[in-house]
């Protein structure tokens, strides 16, 4: 990926976020240094949801307008989203082990994140398994839309699963009420990660354009 003003700005924003997180944000009293993972975990989760939301939107628009650019946006966003979901799934257990005493729990939010990862990994594999460009775009758009439809069902079924069978879990889901200093750092991390997402999306999109230009479809239909 070439350095563009946007990608430079994104990297700079991330650097500022972490300088602030490590040197100018107070340690959390109970969790200690482990809590610093918040500034990687939470913004990654936000970006992953943003990215998959865009996949769904671009998929609907593609089936409607049949514009190849929309397909490339969906493709790029899915890949960046899977990358950030992977970060969420790796940093979550690392944080969970010292704080909750367990690497993994089948909480609604965790399960949903895991299944988002499965769905969009399937999406990427599907794209790789279809050679015809127009067909690949239509197939992926269909999967992108169905995946978006699926998300509420996964969330609801796992949520019911837990409320009907209450179990002693160590974690308490829900946003922690953060003191101002930490909240400011967290908000900064959300902003800088969103910038990083846009930079990565643009880079990945450009790659898709160059790849498609290098291999033009054999037949041009009207």
């Amino acid at each position, binding site marked *: 990926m070439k350095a563009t003003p946007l990608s430079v700005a994104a990297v700079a924003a991330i650097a500022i976020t972490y300088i602030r997180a490590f040197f100018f944000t107070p340690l959390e009293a109970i969790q200690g240094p482990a809590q610093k993972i918040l500034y990687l975990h939470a913004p990654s989760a936000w970006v992953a949801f943003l990215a998959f939301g865009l996949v769904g939107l671009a998929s609907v628009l593609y089936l409607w307008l049949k514009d190849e650019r929309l397909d490339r946006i969906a493709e790029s966003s899915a890949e960046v989203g899977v990358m950030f979901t992977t970060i969420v799934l790796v940093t979550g257990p690392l944080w969970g082990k010292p704080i909750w005493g367990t690497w993994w729990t089948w909480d609604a939010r965790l399960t949903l994140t895991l299944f988002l990862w499965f769905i969009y990994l399937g999406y990427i*594999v599907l794209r790789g398994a279809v050679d015809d460009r127009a067909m690949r775009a239509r197939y992926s758009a269909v999967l992108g839309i*169905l995946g978006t439809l*699926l998300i509420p069902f996964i969330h609801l079924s796992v949520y019911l699963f837990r409320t009907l069978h209450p179990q002693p879990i160590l974690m308490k889901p829900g946003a922690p009420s953060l003191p101002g200093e930490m909240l400011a750092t967290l908000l900064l991390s959300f902003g800088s990660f969103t910038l990083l997402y846009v930079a990565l999306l643009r880079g990945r999109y450009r790659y898709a354009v160059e790849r498609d230009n290098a291999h033009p479809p054999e037949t041009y239909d009207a």
Partner: protein
Amino acid sequence: MGDALRDSWVIAMKDLAIEFRTRSAFLSAVVFALLGVVIFFFAWDPTAVTAADLAPGVLWVVFTFSGLLGLHRSFGAEQADRAIDGLLASPVARESIYLGKAMANLIFVIGVQAASIPAIALFYGLPIGSVLAPLCAITLLAAIGLVAVGTLFSAMAVNTRLAELLLPMLSLPFFVPIVIPAAQATAKLLSGRPVGETLPWLKLLLAFDIVFTVGCMLAYPFTLEE
């Protein structure tokens, strides 16, 4: 609407006639389901887990995987000699093709389930007689959901390079919101809880069936070559 349904039925009967004459997929799916039940039995420690606790899991794992065997065959059969072109050239709405395929798959999956539920009751010593009607309702609702999604993915997967691998990879995440309610409701029934307690799960299954049958039917025409 009546014509569309009749067209679907004709397509479903065509698929079932092929299946009835060869019987290959149905028999292998039933044998696969029975083998699954048997293998779970040997992986089971009856002193630690009761049969009523284990059975719902076994039932739904077996149904999910044996269902996939039938789904792959659904559009795989149309690949030979490009038979799908004949279907597409016929004056039948695209939605009816999907619905016909889905109906045939539903009958296939119900057949496999009808063969494996008594086997599970027998092998695990479960008294299913008293809960048979609600159990059938759960099984049917879940089968509709599995088939609605699976038929669409089968149509897509046959045209890809990873056909056999891609169908389970795409379908299984979609089966999760079906398998969770179905297995939970089955567990309630087998442990003798009142039928009313399964209602939230049944509603969830019904909602899934409606959303994904309509969604997949609308999406199906986009999976065809234009």
